[in-house]
């Protein structure tokens, strides 16, 4: 039963990783931008919500509803103001720009909040759980996170395949100049992609923050999980990201079951194995252009 428990917990944890990684996957898929500040965005969102709930009477849910649209706007501005101009000079510039952004955010947070570790207080929800059998119970928070991840991924998939904006986003990813001939302004399309990416990473950051503590410098450590989920699943494929997140989550919880010291190592080993034996990822993206 402990193994069943490890598998269930691993799958649920995978949902969080997938939610966290889908923005990274989207930005890479649409613009070929590797956002090194992705993890720091998650941490920044957590601190913002933390500040709102301790300085105002607004609760976690209300603060989340404020911070998500704020991050979408922030993403649009970062893309049109910093990343799109950097894109014109090549992929290395965007890498440097996001690396710089990562350092700025970490230092600003350290300046504003000190290096102390914080946690988001969600009251009794943090320990409440659903008892399935005597030995198997799952935390409501994990279930909620997993549910949110599925909702976000399905919504994103529907957006990309069914809406005009989603379609032109995929078209722009294929061939930006040909997309302008259909009336698309790549700057605007890229802005929307980054807005979505930032909003999802903010949501993931908040779910992280409700389940474990966070500090200003933890972003890069988190970022590696997103990278691993994306690479295990296959670059540029959203379902791949979900599968990748779950494989990573499973590896970590099963590794922890063997020996708690193996938790992170097991995830990294799976990641390395995928890179070595199936570099296109478990679910190869349909896009090859």
């Amino acid at each position, binding site marked *: 039963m402990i193994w069943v428990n490890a598998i269930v917990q691993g799958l649920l944890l995978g949902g969080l990783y997938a939610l966290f990684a889908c923005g990274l996957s989207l930005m890479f898929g649409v613009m070929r931008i590797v956002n090194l500040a992705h993890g720091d965005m998650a941490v920044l969102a957590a601190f913002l919500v933390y500040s709102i709930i301790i300085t105002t009477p607004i609760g976690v849910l209300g603060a989340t509803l404020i911070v998500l649209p704020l991050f979408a706007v922030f993403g649009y501005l970062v893309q049109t103001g910093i990343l799109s101009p950097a894109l014109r000079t090549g992929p290395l510039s965007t890498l440097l720009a996001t690396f710089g952004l990562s350092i700025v955010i970490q230092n600003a947070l350290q300046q504003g909040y000190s290096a102390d570790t914080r946690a988001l207080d969600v009251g009794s929800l943090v320990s409440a759980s659903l008892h399935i059998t005597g030995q198997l119970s799952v935390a409501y928070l994990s279930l909620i996170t997993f549910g949110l991840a599925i909702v976000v991924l399905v919504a994103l998939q529907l957006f990309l395949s069914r809406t*005009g904006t989603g*379609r*032109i986003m*995929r*078209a722009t*990813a*294929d*061939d930006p*100049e*040909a*997309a*302008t*001939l*259909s*009336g*698309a*302004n*790549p700057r605007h399309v890229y802005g929307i992609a980054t807005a979505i990416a930032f909003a999802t990473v903010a949501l993931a950051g908040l779910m992280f923050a409700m389940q474990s503590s966070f500090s200003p410098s933890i972003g890069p450590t988190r970022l590696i999980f997103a990278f691993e989920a994306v690479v295990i699943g296959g670059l540029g494929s959203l379902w791949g990201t979900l599968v990748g997140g779950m494989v990573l989550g499973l590896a970590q919880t099963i590794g922890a079951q063997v020996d708690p010291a193996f938790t992170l190592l097991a995830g990294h080993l799976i990641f390395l194995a995928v890179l070595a034996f199936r570099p296109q990822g478990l679910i190869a993206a*349909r*896009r*090859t*252009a």
Partner: protein
Amino acid sequence: MNLLVVDQLTVRHGQLTAVNAVSLDVADGTTLAVIGANGAGKTTLLRAIAGTIMPAGGTVTYDGQNVTRVPAHRLAANGIRLVPEGRRLFPSLTVEENLLAGAYRRRTGPWNVNSVIELFPWIGQRRRQSARSLSGGEQQAVAIGRALMGNPRLLLLDEISLGLSPVAVQGLYAALPDIRAAGTTVLLVEQDVSQALRVADRVLCLLEGRPVLTGSPAELTPEAIETAYFGLTRRAS
């Protein structure tokens, strides 16, 4: 009324002047064919009109407005649609999605997925297929359909016959009367002179970036076209 007026347009690629002081006008509802040998500046001229490349001098006036420096996506939304050289379909999208992408910023008008399928009936059975799986001629048809989805007033066709079999080329040109019947003004660039003469109301021949001959197909003699096309100057005998 002239839908498009190009005045003294000059476009440079670095040191090379690809289009040199070209002036032309296209009356609403008519078809102008720009012919010329490889490297005559035909594609560059179309790209400058469509806004994907900025000219060094001269003006482009569309529907009475100076649009010389208006970016391509705004022009596309306002009814100038370019079918680019090399087709440039979106390979990860299906055939139907390629058409729908063309409708992203569209004017109102007669063209939609169904009317494009009426124009090229084979698309009906293959709409769910990946655009990558199509033959060159089929891709060209979808590229034209994608441009039509925006309900253009001015359709710019860049060498739609390039690299295609004569049968495929015929199939594409057979669609042109239906496109013009919808009131669309067409500016096409073509290396295949006989094909261009068959469909155009007027012809402009470019040589090394300069206009060297213009007229209606009826009034141009084959000799005059040949001379202009190849830049031959006949010695008086």
